[in-house]
């Protein structure tokens, strides 16, 4: 089996964009949840 080093190097930017993309979307969801929690405050724990 031959290792495809040039292919590996070519795909690295896609992989980096991918994981960064997941962080960006999750961070956005985080921000909106914080907003929701602030606008609709938590009930008191019974």
């Amino acid at each position, binding site marked *: 089996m031959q290792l495809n080093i040039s292919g590996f190097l070519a795909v690295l930017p896609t992989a980096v964009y991918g994981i960064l993309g997941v962080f960006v979307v999750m*961070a956005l969801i985080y921000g909106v949840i914080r907003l929701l929690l602030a606008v609709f405050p938590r009930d008191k724990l019974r």
Partner: protein
Amino acid sequence: MHFLQSMSFLLDWTKGITPGMVLMWIIGGVLIFLAIKKDFEPALLLPMGFGAILVNIPFSGAIDQIYRAVTGGGSLEIVQEGIIDVLFRAGIANEVFPLLLFVGIGAMIDFGPLLSNPKMLLFGAAAQFGIFFTMSVSVLFGFDLRDAASIGIIGAADGPTAIFVSNFFQSKYIGAIMVAAYSYMALVPIVQPFAIRLVTTKAERRIKMRYSPKSVSKTTKILFPIVVTLIAGLFAPQSVSLVGFLMFGNLIRECGVLDSLSLSAQHELANLITLFLGITIASRMRAEEFVTLDTFIIIALGLVAFVFDTIGGVLFAKLINIFSKKKINPMVGAAGISAFPMSARVIQKMGTAEDPTNHLLMHAVGANVAGQIASVIAGGLIMTLIH
């Protein structure tokens, strides 16, 4: 003699049997054994194991067979449809089964622990590292980019997402990918402790985290699935059917006026789809496609995906600890993989093993359900980036 020749049709199978088929019977038997004896994801591994036997019987009527009939004007090809291939076209090729299963999964998940501590969302993101790492390594091993992306998605630690993405890329390795994904999900209690110990010290594993539960308003719980669908849909439109169906199930659960539908989605719907999903996946476990060196490489790469997901989550928690006064037990980061709820249970068990008074379960559950969302978004982003 004439009688014996006439009865020779009973031995037709000898013309079609191959060593690969016999090997697939053994593999099917091993999957059934693991499901029954070891309780490894029995709802999926048992049907897959049985299906592997079913489709590897010579001239099996369970899969499509092409016959050549001689007619007056020449020969004619007749396709006799088999139920497993019919189910594959009806439920997996068009992605109906994984999506319907997601309605059930969405209805099962309580996002309360995550909403109560939304920071855990970031651990869900970090623990998808293995997907992208494995995709790159798969390219290194000579797989083309679409197959590499399908192999990487094993790291989503989520069966329906793996089926959806590998089917989107029309990967010929879907059978091997499914076997790897479900096997490693079952092996989370073995794989994760090993990976966590590789990158943590005993002192780190003993970090205590206090859990102060905060209730979340019903309005927030109802708006959450709608907001997540909108955000994921806008930024990763390919993920919208997966995220949308997951969140649709959750909205049914949280709305408070559809309890009967919620229960049906959690039980009848999820059970029915699960019943057919495993046996249908076996359509892609035919010896000629499955018994190859590539299958073994894919199964090894699946392990790489799970290990690097875990390491990604743990290292991210350690990174946060550098800047934060309130220390996070890095093991909680490992729960950011989607294998729910096994991963959270593993972290709780490891936490109490290090210190019997350290209960990490609810933190880990928060990270674990975040992983469920993040894995779907990762799948959608991969489909957006590579098409």
